[in-house]
């Protein structure tokens, strides 16, 4: 058990961060609908338990890589919502100077190495980050997210194998929300699923309820400790995205039945934590209010920020 983390994490901390993510995502989505945000916005509403559970199960010095649905991961790891929102708005004050956008936010200052848009492609990077950390004697773990859709990208298995033969401090996190855009996981994923698959590559695996932030955090701690000791691991979190994949598809009605969506709404990670940990309603409301204030501030910050100059756009290519 990683006492460094568990001791300092209270359920209220978890709740506060989940509330922050929820408000951020809601605000971003609305801004996107108002065309204030260009490109696309992949919302993680409904999946906050995973983001917060994993981030709080890691040490601050640990690293993280994410994918196209990464706002929650970033915020949970400590990225400033103002600078993340500014990035979504494509502003020069954004974490990636407004050149990356929603799918390419990086903030080295808190170990959030970045999100990548090509499904599965951040996974091998984590292996290299683990290799560098091991060579530097840092004891830092690199956690990398991918979805149920990514489990059919071969590079995921190549990466798990590499981490396994080299005993690297890597934690593979599969955020299984049952769909890749419109495609149900079971229709395109044969056999026993990612955890069973990964186990045959010699890594430790756990499958947990992703709506239960505490369970995610505990599983993360266990696997991260093992990873630090040289046994990489894979954590599968069962969760659900409450909204559509992006703007173009509705939350339900086409590929997902209304009942299914409603069933999952009953398993909202914020509610589950509040009830499970017996948090006082007022405390939660207060935290939500705080989150709301921070996000409004973040929105204002983003709106007020300038876009990158044309000169900036030619910078940071090579040399």
């Amino acid at each position, binding site marked *: 058990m990683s006492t460094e983390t568990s001791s300092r994490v209270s359920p209220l901390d978890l709740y506060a961060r989940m509330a922050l993510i929820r408000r951020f995502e809601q605000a971003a989505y609305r801004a996107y609908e108002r065309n204030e945000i*260009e*490109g*696309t916005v992949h919302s993680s509403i409904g999946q906050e338990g995973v983001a917060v559970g994993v981030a709080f199960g890691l040490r601050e010095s640990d690293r993280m890589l994410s994918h196209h649905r990464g706002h929650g991961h970033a915020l949970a790891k400590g990225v400033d919502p103002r600078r993340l929102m500014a990035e979504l708005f*494509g502003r020069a004050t954004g974490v*990636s100077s*407004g*050149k*990356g*956008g929603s*799918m*390419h936010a990086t903030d080295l200052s808190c170990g959030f190495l970045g999100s*990548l*848009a*090509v*499904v*599965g492609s951040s996974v091998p990077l984590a292996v290299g980050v683990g290799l560098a950390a091991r060579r530097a004697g840092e004891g830092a773990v690199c956690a990398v997210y991918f979805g149920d*859709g*990514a489990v*059919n*990208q*071969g590079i995921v298995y190549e990466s798990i194998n590499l981490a396994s033969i080299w005993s690297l401090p890597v934690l593979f996190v599969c955020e299984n929300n049952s769909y*890749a*855009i*419109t*495609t149900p996981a079971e*229709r*395109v*994923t044969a056999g026993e699923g990612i955890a069973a698959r990964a186990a045959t590559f010699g890594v430790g695996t756990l499958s947990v309820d992703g709506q239960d932030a505490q369970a995610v955090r505990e599983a993360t701690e266990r696997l991260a400790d093992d990873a630090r000791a040289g046994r990489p691991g894979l954590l599968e979190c069962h969760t659900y995205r409450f909204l559509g994949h992006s703007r*173009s*598809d509705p939350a339900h009605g*086409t*590929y997902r039945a209304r009942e299914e969506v409603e069933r999952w709404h009953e398993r909202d990670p914020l509610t589950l934590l509040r009830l499970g940990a017996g948090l006082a309603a007022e405390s939660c409301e207060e935290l939500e209010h705080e989150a709301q204030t921070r996000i409004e501030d973040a929105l204002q910050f983003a709106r007020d920020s300038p*876009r*990158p100059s*044309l000169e900036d*756009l*030619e910078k940071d*290519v090579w040399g």
Partner: protein
Amino acid sequence: MSPDSEVPYIEAIKAALQDAMRADETIVLLGQDISAGFPFGATRGLAQLFGEERVRDTPISEAATMGCGIGAAMTGTRTVVEVDFAGFLLLGLDQLVNNAAKLRYMSGGQLRVPLVVRVGQGPFGSFAAQHSQSQHAWLAAVPGLALCAPSTAQDAYDLLRWALRAGDPVVFAEDMRLYRRRGPLRRAAREGAEHVGESAPPARLSALDVQEDVPRARVARTGRDATAVCYGFGTTIATQAAAELSAQGIELEVLDLRLLSPLDEAAIGESARHTGRVLCLGDDPLLGGITGTLAAAVEERAHGELSAPVARLGARHVPTPFGSREAFVYPSAESIVRAVHRLVAWPAPAQAQELEIEHGELRMAPG
């Protein structure tokens, strides 16, 4: 669909798929979320028409999907693999380049791979660097592949029907900026009757001896003062630029290449000799991109008959930035107008001097 209705480019693609699948029962579509028609609607409704056996949603496994398409194509099932964004094509590129393009050659002609790869090109939707890229020179440079880059709804239809009759692999590069643009569409009444325009006789186009009929380049707009050699979305903005220039008394000829491989160099030479001033347009970088090949073709086909150096307009040598800033990287109607102004003014004394100092002046990035 009435013969003269205007339809979006993406609908023309769907119409071609639908008509071809009706005419040829072997055709199978492979791609992610294609039964839902996600994300641009090119395949919406086709699963209902032809069944899930022929419209197959794949896992996110671009490499194996491409390989599967090749294996099926080489044993009698003509396959269309859909790759939504250029960035994802890289995952299947080994299969496309090392297998699809080479199997016929390496097997001494025994294997044929009638595979069509539909792939989105160019920037679109502000999705940033990994989604948005243009791969025209890359794909044209692969012996064993043909490369279509249609610019209108009609061409999207006709060239896709043509690709779906070809005996060898065709990459169908769809500039995503065209998807929503409308144009007239006439569907083929019967198999083989689409309007590919003048078709080359079995001939030596570019470096390649081609046995099959290949659609030729097309003069999309005639002009006497300069030529824009272009394809795909380039044809749209060149045509816009031509209208603006025309109002200023400058007549820009727009030569729409339609295919980049085989390349209709004869048509390039003809138009270049006609106007004497040529602007080559591309969406990949000037360094290593397709405009180099086009400019070289102009020089080779019209040497001594040009009144100005060949100009090129390509993408800036940067990854695509996020957001609407992406427009900054690629040619636009405005940058074409500026380039043509300089071309037709050549050799205006001031500019001539400028060129003495700074060679390569007429090699332009946009803006």
